[in-house]
């Protein structure tokens, strides 16, 4: 395994797509904040190329979401997105993945991240498309 660090998250999806073109098996490891930064890159490379790239997303803000008794399905109102006790990153992660056409699984509470990642890798390869797993263990 080789680690390639990047200067900004959008680079990760283009590099991973190039790695896949060259016959490698890339995995993108990224925080959800960086995922939101990567919009045009993931759309125009991995999704557009149907590249089977698994994405491991660490979930910033899910702890605050749990603390505020919110769920990922709560309506994203301006009031909610501007509250001091809420991290909007977590609220916007899953709707954004839906919008980009990237299927995902959320790994929360006591669920095993290793098993979730293994399923994501297998699904990405069998479906020939990018797939994601969000690690949000603060959410029960």
């Amino acid at each position, binding site marked *: 395994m080789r680690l390639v660090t990047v200067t*900004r998250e959008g680079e990760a999806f*283009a590099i991973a797509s190039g790695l896949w*073109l060259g016959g490698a098996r890339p995995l993108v490891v990224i925080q959800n904040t960086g995922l939101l930064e990567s919009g045009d890159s993931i759309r125009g490379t991995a999704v557009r190329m149907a590249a089977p790239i698994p994405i491991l997303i660490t979930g910033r803000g899910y702890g605050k979401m749990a603390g505020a008794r919110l769920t990922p399905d709560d309506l994203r109102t301006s009031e909610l997105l501007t509250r001091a006790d809420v991290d909007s990153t977590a609220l916007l992660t899953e709707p954004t993945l839906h919008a980009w056409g990237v299927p995902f699984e959320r790994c929360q509470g006591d669920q095993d991240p290793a098993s979730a990642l293994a399923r994501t890798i297998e699904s990405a390869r069998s479906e020939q498309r990018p797939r994601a797993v969000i690690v949000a263990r603060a959410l029960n």
Partner: protein
Amino acid sequence: MLTRAQLLEPLARHRTNEVVVTTMSVTRPWGRLSDHDLDFASADSAMGHAADLALGIALARPKRTVVCLNGDGSMLMTLGTLATVAGVAATNLVLIVVDNGTYEITGSQPVPAAGSIDYAAMAEATGFPRVFRFDDPREYVEAVPDILTTPGPTLVHVRVERGSEGPIGRSIEEPARYLRVSLAEWSRTLRDALAADLS
């Protein structure tokens, strides 16, 4: 300053088995010269991400040279990629910045600081061991064989005349096979071509 033909024709003449990634306003002109299984148009794709995509191919295929014909506007969108390339020491990557000073395919809006940016200096500052600057077509022609064969990573800054190319249509009217089919379909063609040769 070079014409687009003065930039691309020497490359096409000397190209052997290199992967060539194109983007933006050189995509169709290169397609008029080359219809190779190892050509890849990073067009109808992600803005500014041809260089990093080419880097990925280069890392996966370290024995094969990968040439990226990038735009100056595209380069500015992902300047950090220069540091990424230098950091992984991708010796088989040749990154050519085709500097026309405009975002040509969206209507030739001027690039910020057009004409005054030294991309070779930027690359050198991030750690590229080989950088070139060309305004003179004769100097460029003489250097092309060395650029393609000497290990880098290499950055080539070429000033070219402005043009009027529009975006590609991925239709039968386009001049090369890889410009007529979807990005997903050609991705598999290139992947298969690279898999067929383990170099």
